[in-house]
């Protein structure tokens, strides 16, 4: 029953039901992309909610958004972009069969991912201290820059809606980051054992695709949550 497989070089990573490595690799890649489409739709539900309330509560969202730390948000964006570079370099190293380099880049990615999560935790903590976490203790007072005391008082409910969406969206993103860090830890372990080489590196490529996707989500979250209404 392995007639087709026998004709090609037999790779130990080739699973019995595939004819050859090309078919196996292409299947895995297509599967991963399809999975990313489900992720697009998953985040899509939240973007949909965001869009509707952003338009309905335009000014209150703007006011609430300014309380987020632009500095931390920007730093986190940079950290995440850097991690994308280390991921793509890891994939590159795997494809060229450079196992030590692969391990190094995987560890670098994990460190950057944890940095992102750490900064995020600081931001969450700040919000908690400021009573910006939705719930009975929620309280939001807009900071009025001088000369703007005529601003409408911020509607507490609408501001709370902003923070609800903020926590749900960044929270879901953070959960994806945590899963990503877990995945990369597994990859690093396998890479340490020399599991990936020139011919077999699909897990690295697919985990890389996942990481980049999570990065792309943040690329949209950053302006939508941090950058609205920063001008005065």
């Amino acid at each position, binding site marked *: 029953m392995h007639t087709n497989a026998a004709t090609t070089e037999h790779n130990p990573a080739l699973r019995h039901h595939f004819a050859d490595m090309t078919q196996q690799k292409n299947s895995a890649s297509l599967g991963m992309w399809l999975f990313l489409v489900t992720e697009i739709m998953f985040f899509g539900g939240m973007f949909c909610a965001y869009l509707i309330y952003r338009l309905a509560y335009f000014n209150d969202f703007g006011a609430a958004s300014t309380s987020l730390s632009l500095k931390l948000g920007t730093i986190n964006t940079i950290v995440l972009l850097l991690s994308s570079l280390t991921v*793509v370099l890891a994939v*590159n190293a795997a494809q060229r069969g450079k196992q030590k380099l692969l391990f190094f880049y995987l560890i670098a990615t994990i460190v950057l991912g944890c940095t992102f999560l750490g900064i995020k935790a600081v931001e969450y903590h700040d919000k908690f201290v400021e009573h910006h976490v939705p719930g009975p203790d929620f309280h939001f007072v807009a900071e009025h820059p001088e000369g703007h005391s005529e601003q409408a008082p911020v509607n507490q409910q609408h501001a709370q809606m902003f923070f609800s969406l903020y926590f749900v969206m960044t929270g879901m993103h953070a959960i994806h980051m945590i899963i990503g860090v877990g995945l990369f830890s597994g990859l690093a372990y396998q890479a340490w054992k020399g599991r990936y080489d020139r011919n077999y590196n699909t897990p690295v490529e697919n985990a890389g695709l996942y990481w980049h996707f999570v990065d792309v989500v943040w690329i949209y979250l950053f302006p939508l949550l941090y950058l609205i209404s920063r001008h005065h």
Partner: protein
Amino acid sequence: MAGHEHNEHSIGFYVVILFALLALTGLTVGAALVNLHAWNPVVALAIASIKAMLVVLFFMHVKGASEKMTKVVIFSGIFFLLLLLGLTMADYGTRLWT
């Protein structure tokens, strides 16, 4: 093997893409601090989309991929996302019409 004809970019190339992404991040923060009125969100989303495109095309190796299915899959994902947003807005956008 199929995966080999593409993504043979050098490390330097990836670093260039990273710098482009960082520059765009700076640009989007800068643009947000300037009052462009209704254009603020448009500019922010346009820059985000350029960044996303850079990541997808070069980091995720969609440009030059041998697989044409990948592009089909991405476009269908975006299409159905826009469908969700667009048709929902068909309700919310017209609620106040009389």
